[in-house]
């Protein structure tokens, strides 16, 4: 089962704006890409055309790992607005 298929089982109410933003000026000098390796929902990737890091906020499980794993401080992360984001039915 792919990670996308797993996430498809979850209930999300996605807001229009992302609750995660990246500072590309920091990302461009990053070699480790901790975010890619530690996001449990596989939402981080390098856009090879633009050579920029990108994050897909729809599908975020709201753990906040990326904010902590990025020791360079590129990830600005807030909770989605009230009522938006993942809605766990089991938890």
């Amino acid at each position, binding site marked *: 089962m792919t990670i996308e298929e797993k996430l498809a089982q979850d209930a999300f109410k996605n807001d229009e704006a992302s609750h995660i933003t990246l500072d590309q000026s920091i990302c461009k000098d990053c070699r480790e890409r901790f975010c890619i390796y530690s996001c449990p929902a596989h939402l981080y990737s390098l856009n090879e055309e633009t050579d920029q890091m990108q994050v897909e906020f729809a599908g975020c499980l709201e753990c906040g790992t990326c904010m902590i794993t990025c020791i360079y401080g590129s990830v600005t992360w807030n909770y989605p607005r009230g009522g938006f984001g*993942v*809605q*766990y039915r089991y938890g």
Partner: protein
Amino acid sequence: MEKIDVVIVGGGLAGLSCAYSLAGEDLTVLVLERGDSSGSKNVTGGRIYLGPIRDLMPDLWEGAPFERHVAKEALTLMAEGSSTTIQLSSQKMNQRPYPSYTVLRSKFDRWFADKVTEKGAYVVPEKRVDDLILENGRVVGVKTGEEEIGAEVVVAADGVLSFLAEKAGLRKPFEPQHFAIGFKEVIQLPRKKIEDRFGLSGDEGTAHLFVGSLTKGVMGGGFLYTNLESISLGMVIGIDAINKREPREEVHPILDEFKESPDVRKLIEGGTLVEYSAHLIPEGGINVMPKLYADGILIVGDAAGFGLNMLITVRGMEYAVASGIMAAEAIKEAKKKGDFSARPLAHYEDLLRNSFLLKELETFRHVLSVLKNPRWFNHYPQAVCDLYEKLMRIDENPKPRLFSTAYGELRKSILNLQGIKDILSLRRI
């Protein structure tokens, strides 16, 4: 600004326990929850130990929607090509009052929020708190969207990431080594199948932990808890361990490999994945505990970093409940004095220090530094499996004495300078 008595930010176990204790007293209590309902943003492994908290809310537990009481404990040491499992079935664990239960938070917290409401506090969902309101350095309320809500005291029960503790200047910046990521699947199976497969009857349940090769030599482990009609299967891995491990590898497929392992595959066979979730776990313990109170604010539960992962037991929910209740006690005292400044609120920390909570965190303050040793996760599980296999092996050669087999293996893997150092390090926990 008009003020109500208490605004609790976060309707999880800590916030709801605080509200439950305050409701019905002569206080107005408002709980703000960012999810659709309480529980919709919460994740546990999960198991809750009632022993330390049962008497703190004696009237609450009857009828609580737990899943199963844990009647069996299992621990599997996983190695390359082999594994060793020990299992405990105990009559004590199977007698009322049951010491621990498996639980699903979405169901449990929603029920708890209803109980809190019945008792007279207000739980308002879909409210994200964006900021604290400060007046002369004192917390006097919160901002949620365009709305400002004044409060005599704010309880930060906003979870492991506690932005409120940060905004109040009470905690240090986060560091990866103080957090682990937990991620899990809820796998649905018919009730009868779960009971047959795990040898359970009625509401008996199993708690099964896994340590060893599944985390590929880094700090962490796996867990399996039986619910009434599902299995919670997941892993916990230190963030720093993910960052430092070589070769680099994404974390999420490690759970798939764990699911495919012979120890797990058959246990979840035929099940249907119904949810995939993730949550951070505070592991820094008392060493990185924030300041727990200031003028007009208290910090409870995960927000205060109250968690303790010792591999064989994973704790946190009972700390959330206990700290919420102790915060409520301090607030009641402050109300009597009509003073919600730091001085009366300091009573909260006194209560914690005299309770199991901070006593345990103090006792186990070195657990993280002991457990980050990777040999616990690669070398020793392998050594135990190898020893067991050698003891059990009958082949074409005459079998040597069991003692010399065991001694030889132990000398090779444990009774050497490194092994003795590692064993001695355990004295610190």
